[in-house]
């Protein structure tokens, strides 16, 4: 691999990605007053997050079933407003246990 060309690729990738993130944050310091725009920006993180999470979560682990159960545990604990670390940890442990069961019954193999 041509090291010089590779470094240029990295510069272009990182530069474009950084500019996209940086410009709005530096240029816009005023609070937006328009109610529609404010509502839109209020909903954006939830909407983006939800679109990223589902259905991608279903293929995030070795089995759809462990993913569904892990997600279910995560949603349930979140509904009970448990701490973020606990929610994430329990969801992971659930996936691990479900996959342990599935693999011991031969449903999935590692």
């Amino acid at each position, binding site marked *: *691999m041509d090291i010089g060309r*590779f470094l240029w*690729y*990295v510069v*272009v*990738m*990182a530069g*474009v*990605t950084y500019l*996209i*993130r*940086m*410009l*709005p*944050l*530096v240029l816009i310091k005023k609070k*937006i007053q328009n*109610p*529609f725009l*404010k*509502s*839109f*920006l*209020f*909903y*954006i*993180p*939830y*909407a*983006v997050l*939800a*679109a*990223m*999470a*589902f*259905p*991608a*979560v279903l293929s*995030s*682990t*070795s089995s759809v079933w*462990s*993913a569904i159960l*892990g*997600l279910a545990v*995560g*949603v349930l604990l*979140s*509904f009970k*407003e448990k*701490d*973020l*670390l606990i*929610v*994430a*940890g329990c*969801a992971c442990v*659930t*996936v*691990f246990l479900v996959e342990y069961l599935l693999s011991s019954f031969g449903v999935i193999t590692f």
Partner: protein
Amino acid sequence: MQQDDVLNRFYKGLQDGLPIGLGYISVSITFGMLAVSSGIPIWGAVLISMTNLTSAGQLAGISLICAHASMLEMALTQLVINIRYALMSLSLSQKLDKNISIPKRLLIAFGNSDEIFALASTKKQTIGARYFYGLMCCPYLGWALGTLIGAVAGGLLPENVRSALGMAIYGMFAAVIVPPAKHFHPIGKVVLIAVVLSCIFAWVPGLNQLSMGFVIILCGVGAALLGAYLFPIKEAQG
């Protein structure tokens, strides 16, 4: 704005960023393995992760590098895949303490990945620079470390542990989305709209050919526009 309305403790940010960091390790291990198997040196894979901090953009990047694409192609692809960050930064700009200086904003901008943004922007309080710096640490280290692990020895972590770690990010998503949706139902409705749109784009033949970056923009913007139209928020909830 009173001082105690600003979330500005470094340690609190560090703590909140830990699950993101754990989740990033598993994702970036995959990236590290892919990069090295496509002929990129180990240091190159880690360099890409430490300068880009974005999953889809980096994956597209290595395939373009392998295809010996032009620099223009590289720039345009990154623009299309990552344009969603402009939206996130715009949203984050409304959430940041307005007294944060330009140099600090330059650093904050670097760490505005999907998950970090999601966590910061759904906090009730205004976000201070120190909290955000804390929040960036674990994800940044996890992203670089995972890339290194994947690049050096893809099979180091057993498959079942990697699989379980893959759930960390989604557990975190749930912890971010569900409690506010429980207290303010329009959020739940917007989330549902976004999920339905996202399923359509994932499963309908033809539509599922679109790039992941585009799909997130379309679904996120679509659901948030509908939400803003159907359930405009009043001052208190913003």
